[in-house]
């Protein structure tokens, strides 16, 4: 059986990426805005309150999606790191450098909203608990990748170093995931699992599903925005990029 790999090689071409991402971007933006708006309104105003935690549980609708995205983003860094190292794909390094700051922001949101949720629920902003500590390590891993990418001026060496750090650091992800099972912890277990139905009523978990999908769409849209600019900068000598820059400038001046 012969599988066509042309799509895979096309994926590595900055020009093709730029064209396809331009078409994808409006749809991702639309989905992100709609899902986040509906999910957050539903979660804040219409979902029933928790019988133990009262209304403070509504923080779940941003805390869990941010934490899920923070971890998925890191796994993505490791995957594009492998792709970049093995196939020397230019676009993989662009994706790695552009996704790392977004992942760091999401980790920060998860930690901050978690602290704010922890105060009324556990009576403390912060505990040195396995889940919280491993999330803090994730934040430092993101900082490490960002700093490494900026510290090395040679683009190829920086890409390789960041890819290696991303791949090594991915060991932290299962630690975060299973931390609530391996150690005694204040943190509650997973809300969503792929195999079981959630333990809460549908009007509580449906808005969470919406905001979680919304966060992923948001991530996609923001990542494409960053990557498109980075491609323009890195490929500045290519003729299609010059045309595109002139095209953008033309649009800006006529406006």
């Amino acid at each position, binding site marked *: 059986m012969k599988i066509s790999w042309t799509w895979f090689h096309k994926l590595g071409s900055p020009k093709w990426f730029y064209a396809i991402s331009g078409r994808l971007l409006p749809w991702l933006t639309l989905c992100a805005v709609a899902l986040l708006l509906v999910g957050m309104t539903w979660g804040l*105003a219409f979902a029933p309150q928790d019988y133990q935690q009262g209304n403070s549980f509504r923080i779940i609708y*941003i805390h869990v999606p941010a934490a899920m995205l923070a971890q998925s983003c890191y796994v993505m860094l490791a995957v594009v790191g492998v792709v970049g190292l093995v196939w020397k794909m230019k676009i993989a390094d662009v994706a790695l450098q552009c996704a790392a700051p977004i992942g760091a922001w999401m980790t920060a949101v998860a930690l901050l909203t978690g602290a704010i949720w922890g105060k009324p629920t556990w009576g403390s902003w912060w505990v040195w608990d396995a889940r919280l500590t491993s999330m803090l390590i994730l934040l430092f891993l993101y900082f490490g990748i960002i700093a490494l990418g900026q510290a090395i001026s040679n683009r190829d060496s920086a890409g390789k170093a960041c890819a290696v750090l991303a791949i090594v650091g991915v060991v932290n992800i299962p630690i975060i995931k299973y931390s609530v099972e391996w150690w005694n912890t204040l943190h509650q277990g997973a809300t969503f699992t792929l195999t079981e139905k959630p333990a809460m009523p549908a009007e509580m978990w449906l808005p969470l599903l919406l905001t979680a999908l919304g966060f992923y769409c*948001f991530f996609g849209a923001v990542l494409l925005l960053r990557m498109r600019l980075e491609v323009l900068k890195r490929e500045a000598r290519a003729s299609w990029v010059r045309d595109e820059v002139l095209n953008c400038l033309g649009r800006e001046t006529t406006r």
Partner: protein
Amino acid sequence: MSFASFSDFLAMGHHGLYVWSAYGICLAVLAINVAAPLLARRRYLQEEARRLRREKNQ
């Protein structure tokens, strides 16, 4: 609607400060993440425009 009135909604049953500050931080971070690449793109295009003008004058 799980609240009787709008002031109830704002109060969040004594947890208003926690819930609203968490949402505030989250929305602020989302806004920063949208604004940063858009501003960076504008800055880059302005730089390119300046560079092109310089090259034309030479």
